């Protein structure tokens, strides 16, 4: 390898190192994830049972009248490890709090007169409908396991103890 080529590689690697590590140090300094730059802040906050936490259970009502648990990870497996935060964010209407809104979300906000008038979980019915359709697409048209509705139940663990985990708070239901 000639000297010129060697120098070219040294320069290329120096730039590559800086381009990767400088933003990573910035992310670390401010503990901020700015995709694709990562602050490895997994589980950074210590857990405290007294704090109280909400969580969600996805269920379906079959045409035969049975209530079944639906596994979001099987319906949208691309989102592996992220289905639960997608639900958290959708319940919290986070898609309406962006600087640049989806045109349909902007139209809805204008229609209701602003974020303060927007009902909670405004897009949850759309998400439940999508999951319901994905589930039914895997069933035969005559299957008693087909869903007639999808439900999202919100529970809260607020006992401050290691018991009484499931205090039902709210439920959203979407007929299919």
């Amino acid at each position, binding site marked *: *390898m000639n000297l010129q*080529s*060697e120098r070219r*590689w040294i320069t290329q*690697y120096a730039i590559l*190192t800086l381009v*990767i*590590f400088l933003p990573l140090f910035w992310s*670390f300094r401010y*503990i901020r*994830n*700015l*995709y*694709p*730059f*990562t*602050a*490895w*802040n*997994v*589980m*950074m*906050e*210590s*857990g*405290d*049972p007294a704090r109280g*936490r909400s*969580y*969600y*259970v996805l269920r379906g009502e079959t045409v035969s009248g049975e209530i079944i*648990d*639906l596994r*979001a990870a099987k*319906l949208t*497996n*691309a*989102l*592996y*490890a*992220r*289905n*639960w935060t*997608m*639900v958290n*964010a959708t319940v919290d209407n*986070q*898609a309406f709090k*962006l*600087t*640049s809104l*989806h*045109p349909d979300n902007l139209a809805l906000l204008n229609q209701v007169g602003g974020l303060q008038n927007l009902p909670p979980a405004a897009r949850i019915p*759309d*998400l439940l409908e*999508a999951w319901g359709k*994905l589930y039914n697409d895997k069933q035969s048209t005559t299957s008693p396991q087909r869903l007639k509705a999808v439900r999202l139940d919100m529970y809260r*663990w607020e006992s401050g103890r*290691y018991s009484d*985990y499931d205090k039902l708070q709210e439920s959203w239901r979407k007929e299919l």
Partner: protein
Amino acid sequence: MPGNAFSLGVMRAVVHGIFLLSVLWTSFSALGALPATILRPTGVMKLLPWSCYVKLLTPGGMSILKWTMVLVLTLGALGILTSVSTKLSFLLVLFYQGLLRSFGHFNHDEMLAVYYLAILAFSPCGDAFTIRKSKAKVTRAGFVYSYPILLMWLLMSWAYFSSALIKLRVGGLKYLSPDNLPSLAIYHSLDNLHDTSFRLAFWLPEIRNYLPVAVGLVLCWELLFPIAIFVRRLRWWFLLFGIVFHVSTLFLMNIFFPYQLAMYLVFVDWESVRRYCQKRMDALAKSPNPQA
């Protein structure tokens, strides 16, 4: 310096191969069936206009993305047209992982592998371990192959080391409280939206007084990871601890980091593995045929 052309080639095949298998196994059309109105573009994903997402987030649009990724990742894994295929793989995976994080949260599992793709895209990772026959043998200095491997080691070390420092900065000594692990683990075991539903977390309160020691051990392991990884004797103990740690988070917290675990393969001395296999094959070829 670690690695050579063969090791870099193997890592190219491993990283591209893992993303390829994951893409093949994933239903992109199901992702395309989700409403675009719940999307929250994150980081650089904000630079793309909504019209782009609206067009892409359909079952058909996502299928096109899937098969494009399959083609490019296959070329990258096999070592074909690597100067182009590795760069395209990096860009497509970067976009796809950004899209997933725009639906959910910024989880860290695949991020090391994404950075590894970036390193491979700008290194001569197609000089060895490819299915194509090279026209002429390229001669390059050793550092051209070993520096990218060293960068991958540094990134892995940074991931664990900075993770421990952030925990100490944010949580302080409270992070070692006996309730930290049980409450986090139980929270992640209550819903049915995680990928798995292991219930071992509910057993943790019974042993809560011992848990600060376990959490402290994990913090020490993360903090010492960079030093240990460069000491060959300690390396495998640290990696073994990492495997136990990541597997235990699966059973205790329903949180798993399979991509990060797969990236441990960067610490394997692939040249030694190749030499060992070659020796075994030579010995087999030389051994007299018992039926002759």
